[in-house]
């Protein structure tokens, strides 16, 4: 997650961004429609098909329990996207709102909020997520809350800094002095300039959330079996890497593509 805030964003849609959007649309389609179209039950086991190769009865092969990898990938993609989207949303809404509030009110409001964000930053994010997960191991709730709690600071800091610059511009100051209602000014003047930055941050936050969820599975504090989570699938299949390398790579490739799409989409300028 980068911290270089408020660099002006050129508004031209670059080719890479387009590619990112296209890839993201494809993946989202797979995540949304896959589970519906693929009839196989992602939890159904068939020991006789353990590690079945791709292309046979199972289109993308089967895992060590003989579960359809295609079905598991589709469900896993849906889960990862869902989690990532929700955490990014839950981080962006309070982050942006508080950021605007701090920029608008300034003074003590800003100081208190700044302090709060510093405390959150000083609390190791891993600690926060692990602690919350310990309240209800293997549940979506705390995982999602923990991610949102660590990710909101980014939105807050960037929004506050950008909005402060915007609000100090002469025409907006004039509008404030003329007594235009705050919401009107925010909608009319601040939101349009802020939107691209927030979108970028949201895409980065989603990418971070996808990696975080799969990473937590890797240290077995994530979601519970048989949930088809991509990180879980990778870890479950990892021991078989020499026998069935493709099987291990499939969930990894899916994660890779999802993060890649988000990164491409989120590119600031050519960064």
């Amino acid at each position: 997650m980068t911290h270089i805030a408020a660099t002006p964003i050129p508004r031209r849609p670059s080719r890479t961004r387009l590619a990112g959007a296209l890839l993201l649309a494809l993946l989202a389609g797979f995540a949304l429609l896959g589970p519906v179209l693929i009839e196989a039950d992602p939890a159904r086991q068939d020991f006789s098909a353990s590690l079945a190769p791709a292309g046979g009865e199972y289109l993308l092969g089967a895992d060590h329990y003989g579960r359809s990898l295609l079905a598991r990938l589709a469900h896993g993609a849906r889960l990862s996207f869902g989690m990532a989207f929700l955490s990014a949303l839950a981080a962006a809404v309070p982050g942006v709102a508080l950021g605007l509030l701090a920029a608008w009110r300034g003074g003590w409001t800003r100081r208190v909020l700044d302090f709060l964000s510093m405390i959150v930053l000083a609390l190791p994010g891993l600690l926060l997520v692990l602690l919350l997960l310990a309240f209800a191991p293997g549940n979506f709730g705390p995982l999602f809350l923990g991610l949102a709690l660590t990710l909101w600071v980014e939105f807050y800091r960037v929004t506050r800094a950008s909005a402060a610059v915007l609000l100090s511009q002469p025409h907006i100051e004039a509008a404030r002095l003329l007594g235009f209602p705050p919401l009107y000014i925010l909608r009319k003047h601040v939101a349009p300039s802020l939107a691209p930055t927030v979108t970028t941050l949201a895409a980065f936050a989603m990418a971070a959330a996808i990696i975080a969820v799969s990473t937590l599975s890797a240290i077995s504090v994530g979601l519970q079996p048989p949930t088809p989570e991509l990180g879980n699938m990778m870890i479950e299949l990892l021991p078989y890497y020499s026998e069935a390398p493709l099987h291990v790579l499939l969930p990894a490739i899916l994660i890779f593509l999802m993060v890649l799409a988000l990164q491409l989409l989120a590119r600031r300028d050519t960064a």
Partner: protein
Amino acid sequence: MNAASRLAAALLAGCVAGTGALAQTLNVVGPWEIAGIDPAQTGYVFSRMQVAETLVTTEPSGQLAPGLAESWSVDADGLTWRFALRGNAVFHDGTPVTAEIAARSLERARDGVGVLEQVPIAEITHDGPEVVIRLNSSFAALPAYLVHFSTIILAPSSYDDAGRVTQILGSGPYRIDRLTPPLKMELVESGQWWGGSPGIAEVSYTAAGRDETRAIMAESGEADLVFSVLPVSVDRLRRNPDLDIQIATIPRSRIVKLNAASPFFDDIAERQAISHAIDRLGISNVIPRNPDLAATQLFPPAMPGWHQADLPPLEHDAGRAAELLAQAGWTPGSDGILQQDGRRFSVTLLTYSNWPELPPIATALQAQLREVGIEMNVAVGNSSEIPARHQDGTLEMALISRLYSIVPDPIGALLTDYGPGGGDWGATGWDNDQMQAVIADLAATADPEARAPLQRRAVEILQEELPGIPVTWSELAIVSGKRITNVQVDPLEVNYGLAAIRWAE
């Protein structure tokens, strides 16, 4: 080859092979972390690595053998045991191992957490070169309890004023040179072991929690000896001409622990139905990857006297499972899940990831029980949740890995598992008077002839009543490089015999 050129060659080999440490060091890798040095906590690492010793030890065959005690005897009343110490044992700080020190060390072990709690000990004293243990009631298995790692004998300077262990000064062939908990320990030859000089003077132990890591360390040649390699990796390493693999069946069974007092499992037919629903062969083929590990009864064939070869085996028969469940009053509901008096057959199985194979087996069980109309949720958590839920009676099911050689005589485990009120890792909600009587008799009986029918009876009761349902047995895989020879496998995991290992010529 003279010493200097040998050193040079070894150094060169070390660089080429990427061993990192000096090539003269025996690099041992295992999954066990060193969490605290109290013997009750990590004594097994010090015992296996031959830093500290117990009074009694075991042969690889499982027979008890002299450790620090050369011999032992019991009085006719069965209450007073005498352990005669070998005269030539010395601690790493130079203090001789005397009966007085050993008795005090055992007293401390008894005060702490450990297996001695289960023995009816009246007092531990010394009499000349003998440690004398007086009991309140006859307990034939006492010597087996003195094999346990919590009873390692430490030098007086290992303890601080409050009696807490601050360093490990044992009497084994290796002394600790550097201890960096939780993952690393370096050992050097102690130079004064009663058993002679070890074949290799320096040993380094690294704890690597992930199986993939251990396997790769074996493959890359930087580890000479790797313990507990998972079956998947074993299959791959077998094809590597530079590695030797030895496999031992260990007295550990993975069992489904059930609450026989819950409405789901109070009927013996329900427990038998669960047993029939489990495809042990399928699970054994896929997870431990060895069909011979399908647990057709509680104890594996490697436990003579306890494994009963002619006992009717536990078998997979989904049809029979359905019949038994119907007989117990369960009928299929509209959602495909069985119901009885408006209650859905939906249970939660707790398990833990200390043993990496448990969550996968739980996942397999989940799918298999679903086939007979049982909804089983899996919760992978901390191992302590199972005893906690056992104690407060809210446990439904748990998948556990139970070691029957915590003391080399399985009677130790049976006493805690199937005594009155059951046990953390044994029965829940199942009190069987007949079983308790048999166990009590076994604990007091030393004569193998007299024990045999009792052992048989105990196993029969467990097979019939199924307070716990065996799923698979376990193996221990040890991978060693060609650089070393004379690697022994100890199925009881008391002592890995490092001192006997030599460099290959």
